[in-house]
């Protein structure tokens, strides 16, 4: 086994994991890829804000507003530190989906913006490149951008073992490419693509690179300075933080040149009835009263993860992934969808069980208290690529143990027994 497991006491920080399900069974939560559970440190941070400091940040001159502003900006600083960025490059959004849409709509809006937005303009003849393994959140916004502007969408395929097929890299990413948008870790396959290699090619032809970090930032050390990307989007709720808060990181000079997506209060400089000027980033992209408590919760989550150490988090998940692959592949009829080893791969293990639909596998597991995700996981093209209707997916986090994976493997065998396929 590779990687060292985190101490099991860590689980005590997560109140929800103490509850029982379906007739008093202990909960085995293997769906952190959908959303993670929250430690008391995050819950306390949100509660303390509402009990002591609640006010609208960046408004008014009273004490509470000052405290709320400070807490909100401190959270931004924690988040920035967590990914090696400076606070001014951190745009707080609703989630990763909104962060990606923010860039896609900024590119649409560039058509009617000033000359500074020139490099974001797209139209007929231009190309946007994605991959076949994208979550719908990093596919549909680009389909829509192409539909609105007349640009062309192209994509990298997937190899049989679930890696990105880079054979056509130089053809796919060419002088017509304006932006390459790809996952930093597949939410279905677990695959971690070679970002640097793709980014080098993209930058060589003058294209921008956006990474969907929804499944990477929570699970591996990420340092934007050495990442090779121009934009990185991720969600708070998948990394022990609250729902309703996400992040778009962008290189400062790009954010400076980008027109806004959502407009309104907070993001303005001067407003006349005839026209309005906008704040510099990140405020330009944060219209309306922000998700203050949620941002503070995410800041606490970043501090919590940083205290553990993201290299240890990654090692823990690598150990869990290797063990899960081992336990699952020894079951006859189980097929792993994605890389069969824990190398260049994160802790999302998707599989099919011969002659049992994933929905039925999930039902048996649920009855045993094992909570996994079944379906296409918002990445339907992957299922088409592998000729399957859906998969069963187990995803891991800091609080999971080897015993959880034994419960998963036992549950799969029980499903086979129940449906009479083994």
């Amino acid at each position: 086994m590779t990687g060292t497991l985190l101490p099991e006491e860590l689980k005590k920080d997560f109140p929800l994991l103490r509850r029982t399900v379906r007739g008093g069974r202990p909960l085995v939560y293997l769906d952190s890829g959908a959303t993670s559970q929250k430690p008391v440190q995050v819950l306390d941070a949100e509660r303390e804000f509402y009990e002591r400091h609640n006010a609208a940040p960046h408004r008014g001159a009273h004490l509470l507003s000052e405290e709320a502003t400070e807490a909100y900006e401190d959270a931004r600083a924690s988040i920035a530190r967590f990914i090696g960025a400076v606070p001014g490059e951190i745009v707080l959004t609703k989630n990763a989906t909104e962060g990606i849409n923010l860039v896609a709509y900024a590119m649409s809006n560039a058509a009617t913006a000033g000359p500074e937005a020139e490099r974001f303009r797209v139209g007929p003849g231009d190309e946007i490149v994605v991959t076949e393994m994208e979550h719908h959140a990093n596919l549909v916004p680009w389909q829509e951008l192409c539909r609105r502007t007349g640009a062309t969408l192209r994509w990298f395929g997937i190899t049989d073992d679930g890696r990105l097929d880079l054979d056509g890299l130089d053809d796919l990413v060419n002088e017509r490419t304006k932006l390459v948008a790809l996952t930093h870790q597949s939410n279905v396959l677990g695959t971690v693509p070679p970002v640097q290699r793709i980014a080098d090619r993209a930058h060589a032809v003058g294209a921008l690179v956006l990474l969907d970090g929804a499944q990477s930032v929570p699970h591996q050390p990420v340092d934007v300075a050495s990442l090779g990307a121009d934009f990185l989007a991720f969600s708070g709720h998948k990394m022990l933080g609250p729902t309703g808060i996400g992040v778009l990181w962008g290189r400062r000079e790009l954010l400076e040149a980008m027109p806004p997506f959502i407009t309104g209060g907070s993001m303005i400089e001067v407003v006349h009835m005839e026209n309005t000027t906008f704040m510099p980033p990140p405020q330009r992209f944060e219209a309306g009263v922000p998700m203050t408590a949620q941002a503070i919760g995410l800041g606490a989550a970043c501090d919590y993860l940083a205290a553990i150490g993201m290299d240890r988090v990654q090692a823990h998940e690598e150990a869990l992934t290797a063990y899960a692959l081992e336990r699952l592949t020894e079951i006859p009829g189980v097929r792993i969808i994605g890389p069969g080893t824990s190398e260049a791969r994160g802790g999302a293990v998707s599989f099919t069980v011969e002659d049992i639909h994933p929905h039925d596998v999930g039902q048996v597991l649920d009855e045993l208290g094992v909570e996994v995700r079944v379906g296409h996981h918002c990445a339907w093209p992957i299922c088409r690529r592998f000729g399957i209707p859906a998969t069963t997916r187990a995803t891991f986090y800091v609080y999971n143990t080897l015993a959880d994976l034994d419960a998963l493997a036992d549950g799969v065998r029980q499903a086979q027994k129940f449906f009479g396929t083994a």
Partner: protein
Amino acid sequence: MQLEAMYQEVILDHYRNPHNKGLREPFEGEAHHVNPTCGDEVTLRVHLDGEGQDATVADVSYDAMGCSISQASASVMTDLVIGKSVKEAMAVGEEFLALMQSRGRDTEPDEDVLEDAVAFVGVSKYPARIKCALLAWMAWKDATARALGEAS
């Protein structure tokens, strides 16, 4: 385990040996329905004999991909509606919908009306699976509406 309550033997029988499966001619209405949460799909054709609500459901044929619940429900549904008038079959559909929306509370489904479909009572306790059980029924309603539209 509650599993036996959900996956009653009659459901597993229909799943393993589905009735009336396969797409057939002739047909007047066809519908393709998808469950976007799990990717289950059904293509369903309706052949009517006669016109309007009094027309007889002469055949329902389908091609489907999905879990045991959605496959078994499609099979049970075809058995229930073929041979009935559109009006009678729609009434059975309403009864099944009511059963699915009962959340297992009203546990006395009318076996005279629903026949094998009473076995789905356990499914109604699992909100995530209700859509599976209703997929083929919704496709049937849709295809029938199209068939009637063409007929009139």
